[in-house]
């Protein structure tokens, strides 16, 4: 088990192998993403029962919660990939870390934006300076910092390693976001999903949400692989196999 994992890990380090395997995976993930997001959206927006207090406005959680979960997961992945790149000098890990940042920033923005839209009718304000909201805003700034640092270096290797350090430092924010609703008295409600407890809402409400979360993860996988493949082609354009690929295409 461990040996197969190590072998897989080492093979993952080869840009060519990653390019080939991701080419085979993308259609499956893309199909799953389309299916799950379509089912989740229709189920959540049209068939899930309305909330007894908030009416229909609660339905924005079918976008808000997946986006917020993704925003944190992506930062985590970016830091882990960056750390792998720093320690084992793996080129693919650097490229994965780089490809994470823009989509993560987008997800953070969507979470904040949908939260504001939901907050206006429910809390009566677009924005409150609450621990959960503020720490998400910091996360957005951290993403911007990583993106800015990536484009500031001339050498791609230095850019990848510098932004890896920044994302590893910035990861202290992730537990703060996660537990902000428990540590402080916040206006924001506690976590929707927990591993140890049953969700507070009925199954007809959280099932479509779960479908959406999985769908968003599949979408992220597709976008991550597409971006990493682009990155691989750009950085490896002088190698034989990319040249061969290009001559086959044209």
């Amino acid at each position, binding site marked *: 088990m461990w040996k197969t994992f190590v072998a897989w890990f080492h093979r993952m380090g080869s840009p060519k192998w990653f390019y080939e395997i991701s080419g085979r995976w993308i259609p499956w993930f893309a199909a799953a993403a389309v299916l799950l997001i379509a089912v989740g959206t229709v189920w959540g927006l049209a068939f899930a029962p309305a909330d007894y207090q908030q009416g229909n406005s609660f339905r924005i959680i079918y976008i808000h919660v997946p986006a917020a979960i993704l925003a944190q997961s992506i930062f985590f992945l970016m830091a882990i990939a960056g750390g792998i790149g720093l320690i084992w000098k793996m080129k693919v890990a650097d490229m994965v870390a780089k490809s994470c940042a823009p989509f993560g920033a987008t997800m953070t923005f969507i979470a904040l934006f949908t939260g504001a839209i939901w907050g206006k009718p429910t809390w009566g304000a677009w924005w409150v300076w609450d621990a959960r909201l503020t720490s998400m805003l910091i996360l957005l*700034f951290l993403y911007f*910092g990583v993106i800015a640092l990536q484009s500031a270096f001339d050498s791609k290797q230095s850019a990848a390693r510098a932004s890896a350090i920044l994302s590893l430092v910035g990861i202290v924010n992730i537990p703060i976001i996660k537990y902000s609703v428990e540590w402080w008295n916040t206006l924001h409600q506690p976590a929707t999903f927990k591993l140890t407890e049953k969700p507070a809402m009925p199954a007809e409400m959280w099932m479509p949400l779960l479908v959406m979360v999985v769908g968003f993860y599949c979408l992220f996988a597709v976008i991550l692989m597409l971006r990493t493949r682009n990155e691989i082609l750009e950085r490896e354009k002088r190698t034989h196999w990319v040249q061969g690929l290009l001559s086959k295409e044209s």
Partner: protein
Amino acid sequence: MMNDATPRLAQKKQHIIRREEGMQVSSWHAFTGTLKRDLLLVFRRRSDVVNPLLFFSIAVTLFPLGISPEPDFLAQIAAGVLWVSALLATLLSLDSLFQQDMADGSLEQLVISPHPLAVMVLAKVLVHWLVTGLPLTLLAPMLAVMMFLPEEGYSTLFLTLLLGTPTLSLVGAIGAALTVGLRRTGVLMTLLILPLYIPVLIFGTGAVVSAVNGMAVAGHLAIMGAMLMTALVMAPLAAGAALRISLNG
């Protein structure tokens, strides 16, 4: 230290032993050596010490002029204004941390020396705090008078700045190290560092506000202490790694 005598064959073994002992001692020597050198450099360029303090004073002055000189109103925003200004003054002074050493090549000597880079980074950060954070902390109570901060807040303001400004210097060193090899660093460094400064700001201001309202501040101070300890352990390592990257790229 580089000035080891050339070993004669008969003394070689003893020399190696002595050298190994010397390596163990000299991590501390590297620390004090960097400390002394940087303090001397700062002493020769005294304007670097004064400028952040002037910035701090001027920035604080802007708020009564720009918003309202009403004492009641100023008393409410005093803690926040002082903390934000101290934070910005620290941020602007971070350029001096590695930039000069990068320009004259001594930073490369630090990086290739056999001693742990983090130790020397820590020495540099300590000097930076001694010449910016500490004076800011000492100056803040005087500016607090001008901002009509209620009396109950003074000792807490002083304590939070004393605990918070070293954290700012330590975290800032990471940003300074990441950007030291780049051409235009100012705005980029702000973008990298300010998000990481926000927790310090929140607890610093929160403690002073609690003190003014007659509530307990021990919790805030404990968290600030914890942030300082974490930064003290992690930041020199991260800044050292960042320096190596900046010098390569």
